[in-house]
């Protein structure tokens, strides 16, 4: 952090209204747009209900890498090595499949990941 905290505080105080006023007018974040061509998705007529669901974590520019590792360890009980490998996959490739499981369990995990602030989705496994 190159700027002093005092400067940040002063700048922040001046901009307090701007921060959250501008947020309302901000366009929807591209990262949140649906990915129509996601290769993980299959047409409805090919969906098999007995197939598990994939839980996917997506890269984002705010969450620290160490934070992602911590969250993956907490939510899924992964060892450090596995959590770090998945985090690096998210960082380098934009996303990583972190679980393949029944729908209810996938919903629970996505909810937990959202609670920690990670971008997570679930898709039917092909």
């Amino acid at each position: 952090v190159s700027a002093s905290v005092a400067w940040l505080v002063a700048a922040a105080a001046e901009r307090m209204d701007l921060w959250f006023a501008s947020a309302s007018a901000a366009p929807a974040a591209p990262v949140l747009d649906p990915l129509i061509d996601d290769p993980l998705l299959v047409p409805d007529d090919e969906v098999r209900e007995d197939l598990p669901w994939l839980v996917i974590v997506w890269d984002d520019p705010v969450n620290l890498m160490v934070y992602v590792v911590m969250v993956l360890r907490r939510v899924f009980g992964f060892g450090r090595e596995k959590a770090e490998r998945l985090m690096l996959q998210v960082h380098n490739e934009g996303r990583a499949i972190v679980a393949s499981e029944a729908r209810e369990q996938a919903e629970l995990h996505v909810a937990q990941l959202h609670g920690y602030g990670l971008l997570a989705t679930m898709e039917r496994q092909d």
Partner: protein
Amino acid sequence: MAELRAVEDGLLLVLDADEVSLLDTLAASVLTRVSTGSWDPHDAILARFAPPASRGDEEVARELRGMLVDELMEMRRGRLTALREDLATWSIESGPGIERRLSRQEAEHLIEVINDLRLALGASVGVESIEREELDPEDPRAATLGLMDHLGWMQGRLIEFVET
């Protein structure tokens, strides 16, 4: 400038009065945002706190959002309220250099609420579409991102503490 160091029974966090004030002001702002009682998908901060649960299956995304959005907002309200209540205690008990001993559990709670503040700051300036290397230091968004980074430094040190 914040300092964090391990002590015998946990972690010692030392903050400037300005930092305590800033944390409280930020927490109050975000708390107001998540307390509106309605979730607006066009509000970048609220959208970031309850992102789509599917990127392609609108039915799944809609269904899960309906199930989760209240819980996700309530979770943030709880964390932010707890932080503000705690910060008020720090301010009363201490002088300009504010020391706070944190247990591992308290450090974990602080990590989570700092993350909420960082997500809100990032969403407020549309961080995902900013090329930071090309951002003019005079651009007002630079101050917001600088603050996000400063909180990230603090968060990183706290994570280092709880993960070791």
